[in-house]
């Protein structure tokens, strides 16, 4: 019995590893119109949208904290959008997301070289500084956090979302 369980566990673990290696977390190409898709698909659900990039120093510090936040808050949709324009980026992007525990988040990668247009669709006033976090409440109210977000602020916001539901 014990042995069978162990074998089963071992098999499961191997499969999980294999799966992890063969199908790395999906990176959706963020193109013109993608922003409306994001808003539509999360409408009515509290959503944290985080813009980051692999070459951004403050992002490296913040990413694992967001990974933990996502783990602690299954009631919040977490959408990560890499807004860097370094070529051949998917590998580095996936590696950083997985290391930070964000491999299973909804992950996007800026995939249109005309970055002004992508940013303009999201927020005409945004000039590309990263990190940047948008907190979208159930009713669509958007709170923008420029720069690294403070986790206590995110906790407070998520508590407000829960309270609003009751």
């Amino acid at each position: 019995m014990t042995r069978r369980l162990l074998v089963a566990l071992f098999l499961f673990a191997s499969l999980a590893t294999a799966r992890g290696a063969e199908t790395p977390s999906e990176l959706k190409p963020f193109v013109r119109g993608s922003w409306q898709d994001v808003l539509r698909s999360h409408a009515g659900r509290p959503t944290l949208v985080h813009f980051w990039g692999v070459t951004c120093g403050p992002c490296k510090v913040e990413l694992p904290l967001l990974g933990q936040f996502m783990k602690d808050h299954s009631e919040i949709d977490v959408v990560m959008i890499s807004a860097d324009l370094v070529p051949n980026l998917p590998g580095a992007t996936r590696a950083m997301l997985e290391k930070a525990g964000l491999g299973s988040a909804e992950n996007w990668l800026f995939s249109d070289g005309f970055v002004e247009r992508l940013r303009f669709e999201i927020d005409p006033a945004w000039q590309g500084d990263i990190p940047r976090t948008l907190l979208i409440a159930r009713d669509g109210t958007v709170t923008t956090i420029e720069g690294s977000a403070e986790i206590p602020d995110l906790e407070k916001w998520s508590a407000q979302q829960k309270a609003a539901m009751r």
Partner: protein
Amino acid sequence: MLRTSLLATLALSLCQTTAQAQMSHHQHASEAACEEVELRCASKVTPAFASDGTLWLAWMAGGRISVASSKDQGRSFSAPVQVTQEKLNLDWGPDARPQIVVEKTGGIALAFSIFRDKAFNGQVLATRSIDGGRSFAEVQPITASNESQRFAALGLDADGSVFAAWIDKRNRVPAQQEGRKYEGAGLFFASSKDGGASYAEARLAADNTCECCRLGLAFAGPGRPVIVFRNLFEGGVRDHAVMTFTDPATPGEVRRVSNDDWQISACPHHGPSLSISPAGTYHVSWFTNGKARKGLFYARSEDEGRTFSDPLPLGRADRNPTRPYVLTGPRGATMVWKEFDGEKTSVNAMISHDEGKSWSKPVTIASTTDTSDHPLLVSDGQATYLSWMTKADGYRLLPIGDGS
């Protein structure tokens, strides 16, 4: 001249809109029009005029830095010369670009940065040509340090030496070993007495400056480099500062350009621009998103940066003005920046004939319907030109008239 350029540009933009829309499905991720090394595939192009009126360009394309020259103001170019044979992991940050300086003797000094590792730590490499750009020496690190360096700026001093400044993370290591928190990066500098073949030991000008923005570099006089940079003021405020060197080896004090109060723990990727007129007026333009003001601004100083004029806002706030650049020439000061209307990016220009006290109304001088490099200004000692690389319409050099 201005109007002709504008009309020509508009016509070009209109013709290309349809083709562009169809192409965009195939050429999605890249900032460049193509993957090869030629100029039309470049994402970043930096111009410099030689004293004989030859235009030199250094550009990033196909993972290489290339150089070519034009004797007819950009209409035709010499066969490009690749600075390195091998493909490099070039720094593609929004504010990164190759730097080029052309000496009076015809020598050419170059500097650019690469990502040296998978963590995107940078390294500044330098080289020079002593045969009129036909060949370049093997590229060398500008400094022996193995810590991250980015955003080098090169300037040619009156005595022919090359002054270099860059952003350097080396002071992070001792700080962390002592358990201290280290913010930002150091502003480092070094001079080359041999036309950019080798640089003296790097020295610190200011520590804890912003780590992700281009520098503005100009000279207040022979041997007196001036740097404008995004600093980290008390409390993580990323406002701009200016430093005037006493001589190329002696940094001056950090003087604040403007109190914008932009406290942000992020990479703005949006550095300033500096030009100094023969009369000694400092012209600075920059971007901020501070509590005190948001957008693009210009200010001038007549006392080497001790005091600056009230910041003058640039561009239409509802059109996302970005990437300001200022240059003084014999016919006055010129300023350009980008605006975006949701479909196309335009470059707007304005001119001052009174040392920046008053400016002409902004005029759109060029536009494009796809991604583009930052608009830059370059002078051949007489006219001032817009130098602008666009993905859809290629490289452009447009003389900027004063509209009168």
